[in-house]
Every structure is written in structure tokens, then in C-alpha cells.
């Protein structure tokens, strides 16, 4: 298993160079960037080895990254917008998260922390942000954390992009109860589609319900009970 020696974050010039690396890597096959330990482009956050362990799914990625953030003594509120840190981490894990292809969105690797349209797409900051928001019970957000770290999928795209849904405990529990098969821990078939009952439809319906009902004060079951018939095949059986 490869290792990097110390936890770092990119400085302003480092972020610029990282973005340039990602943009270039979209055009030619990505290789390991040589800027991760450049003292002119990075600053050391923790003088301790960071092991590049496998991150098979978003839940595992969030747990590993949370350990790293905690070890560095960084506060959640500061970490969320730390573009240099998340961009450095994504490139440090490039072998796991890559390769970068022409279709790869740069925001998957370079955090755009203040852009509400793309912040959630970052491959590492995205799952950690959801984990952090539901820290008291991360399993309730399993629907957004059960997919492969390098391929978040349509359920994540549809729900994580809605700021008025993703932070709500009851809404997240409802999404997980609907779409995660408790016997396998992964999405039920059809959840990621575009048809009736899909996550794409759910995001729209929930946003409408949010205008009519105080969904944040409801239980997950009460929310699911309000959903129209098209969601019947996803309703939990118990």
C-alpha cells in the first residue's frame, strides 16, 4: 500500500496547480501528481504518516477522512470549506479515485466550496460532509453513502444537490428507508433510474412537500406516508 509521509493542504498556488493538473489529466491520461509534497505549494497539517487505504464506498471514505480530520485537530466548520485540504486529499487518493477522464468533472477533485451547484460532487468532501451532518447516526444517511467512492451515482446526485433536503435527519432517514435494501445495504433496483418512484422524482416531490408540510418535524415514516403511489414499490415492508 502506497503512503504519503505527512498530511498537507495546498496553498493558494497549490490549488491553482492542482486544478491545472486535473484539467490536463482530463485531456491526457492522469498520472500521480508531483505536487503533493512540494513545500512551495503545500503546508504540513500533521507531521504523521497518512496511509492511503482502500475506500471501497462513501461510508468508509467518510469514516477514514473523519479520523484524519480529527487527528489533525481541525474543527468541522473550518474543514468544510478547506479547499486546499480536500483537493490535496483527493489527489493523494488519486489511484483509488481515478483515473481522471475527459468526462470527469474537475469539481470531483478540486473542491468548489462556495458553489452550491457543485460542492457536493467532490469525491471525498462530499461523503464526509454528509457524514458530518448526520454524525449522531450516519446510518440514516446510508442512501447517500453506500455507493462506490469514485462513482457516487444518481441517488447522491439528486438528493445531495438539494440543500433543503440533505441536512434534515428525517428526510435522510426517509430516503434511506425507501431506497436502501436492508438485506444488502445497497440501493434497491430502480432507485437510481429516471422513472416513477426514482430518486429524481423523490427530490421533486420532497421539495414540494417541504413547501406544504413541516417535514423536518416529521418522522421518516410520516414523510413516506405522504408520498404518492408511484413510490409504493420502494416503501419499506415493516
Amino acid at each position: 500500500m502506497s503512503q504519503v509521509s505527512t498530511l498537507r493542504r495546498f496553498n493558494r498556488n497549490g490549488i491553482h496547480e492542482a486544478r491545472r493538473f486535473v484539467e490536463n489529466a482530463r485531456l491526457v491520461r492522469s498520472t500521480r501528481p508531483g505536487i503533493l509534497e512540494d513545500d512551495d505549494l503545500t503546508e504540513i497539517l500533521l507531521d504523521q504518516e497518512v496511509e492511503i487505504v482502500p475506500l471501497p464506498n462513501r461510508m468508509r471514505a467518510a469514516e477514514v477522512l473523519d479520523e484524519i480530520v480529527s487527528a489533525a485537530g481541525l474543527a468541522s466548520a473550518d474543514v468544510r470549506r478547506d479547499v486546499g485540504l480536500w483537493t490535496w486529499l483527493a489527489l493523494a487518493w488519486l489511484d483509488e479515485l481515478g483515473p481522471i477522464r475527459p468526462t470527469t468533472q474537475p469539481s470531483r477533485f478540486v473542491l468548489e466550496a462556495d458553489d452550491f451547484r457543485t460542492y457536493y460532487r467532490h469525491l471525498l468532501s462530499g461523503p464526509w460532509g454528509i457524514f458530518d451532518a448526520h454524525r449522531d447516526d450516519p446510518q440514516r444517511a446510508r442512501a447517500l453513502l453506500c455507493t462506490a467512492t469514485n462513482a457516487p451515482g444518481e441517488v447522491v446526485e439528486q438528493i445531495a444537490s438539494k440543500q433543503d433536503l440533505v441536512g434534515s435527519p428525517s428526510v435522510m432517514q426517509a430516503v434511506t428507508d425507501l431506497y436502501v435494501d436492508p438485506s444488502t445495504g445497497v440501493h434497491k433496483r430502480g432507485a437510481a433510474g429516471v422513472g416513477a418512484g426514482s430518486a429524481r422524482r423523490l427530490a421533486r416531490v420532497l421539495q414540494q412537500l417541504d413547501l406544504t408540510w413541516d417535514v423536518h418535524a416529521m418522522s421518516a415514516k410520516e414523510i413516506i406516508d405522504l408520498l404518492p403511489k408511484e413510490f409504493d414499490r420502494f416503501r419499506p415492508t415493516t
Partner: protein
Amino acid sequence: MTRLNHTGRTRVKKESIDLGVEEIDGAGILNLEVRLDEYGFNPRAQVFLEARRQTTFMRFDLGTVASVRSLINEELTAFGPNTAVTFTLKVVSTAADHAGRVLGLAKGLRPSRSAEERDRQGILPFKPTEDLGARVWRLDLSGDEPIVLINRSVGDWFGFARSPEFCALVYPEIVRLIALWEADNDPEDDSGPWRKFLRGYGFDPVNAPEEPEPRQLWADDVTGSFCMHKDIIAKVVEGDEE
């Protein structure tokens, strides 16, 4: 085409809400005052303020309509410093047959700018950011007022945003995007300065066509009118001659 609100929900006007956030010692400090007398809500209905940014969410219980409480120096503990938090005010029924139903709503609230800031920035605030990658500018329409984000890497971002080139090339597109944004906004909300601005050019966003293509043409007409009244071509020619 007139859009109807079938939910029976009342829009709480922004004038009814004084909301300010100050940065003190790295923390966001919230002050809030709400006036609901004019709406005729059930006095026992509950009032909540929700604060959110991305995945972060806080909710404040403001009591009932009959005795809605103000927030004074309330710390936004879940959010980091200098964070653009968006707020929603909800009035929620407690009646047995409608419990949990939203009776009144004000969405997309942002802290009001001070009078001094408004005088200085006008209706279109500019903000430097390091978040635009290689892009020079972007119009942020995620809150209740448009903000022009300028890439801090351009150096003197403030001077850049006021250069004749920027005004000639970018402002028309900003006006086009804002016209479309206003056309999508609540037709009953007449409080925003941009609606007044667009009506000043003879274009009422409430009457914008609903179909996508005519709507785009309508926005193009708004842009053309803006450019004509601001004499954009003359500004470019003058710039070339200098």
C-alpha cells in the same frame, strides 16, 4: 400567464422580517425580529426559523404566532466564520386536523445588508472569491438577491468589475440572467429591487412568457433594451479611443 398557489400557504413578506448576521470573534451572531400581525395566522401556530448552508442545518423555535420571540445575539454554532447562510421562516399549524401544515413561508432569506452597504453596493453586490477556478466571474442566484462573484486571482477585482470592458461584455449577460431569475420568482413578491428595475425598462417579469423559447426571447429583449439605454456600444468605442 398567471401562476397560482393552490396550497393556501401565505407568503410572509421580507418586510416583515428583520434578519441580521454579524461576525464576532469568528462566530456568526444572529439577530431576528418577526412581525406577523397583518397575516391573520392562528395565534397558536408555531413559528420556526431554519438556517442552512449546504449540508449544515440549524432550526430555531420562535414560539407561537401570539408570542413570537425575537432572537438576540444567537450564535450560529453549526456554521463556520464568514459563511453565507440562507434562512427560511415557517409558520406551522398545530390544529388537530392540519398539524404540521405550513401556513406561512418566507424562503431564501439572507441577512439584510446595512444601509451603508446598500448605498455603497447598489442593488448588485460584488464579492471576490477563490472558488471560480479558471472562470473570471459568475452570477450567484442561490439567495434572495443576485451577487456577482469575481475571481480574486484577477488582482484588483473591484476595479476590474467596474472597467468599461467588464461593463460592456458582462453586464448585459448579468441582466439577462437576472431577468430570467426574476421571471421564475414568486409573482406575488413585489418587494425586490430587480423587479422594479426591469419594469423601469418596460419589462414586467410577472408577464414573461412561460414557454422556454419565447421566454429566452423575452430575456434577450430585456438585454437589448438595457444595452440601448446604457449606450453600451458608445462606451466600448470611447474605451477604444482612450
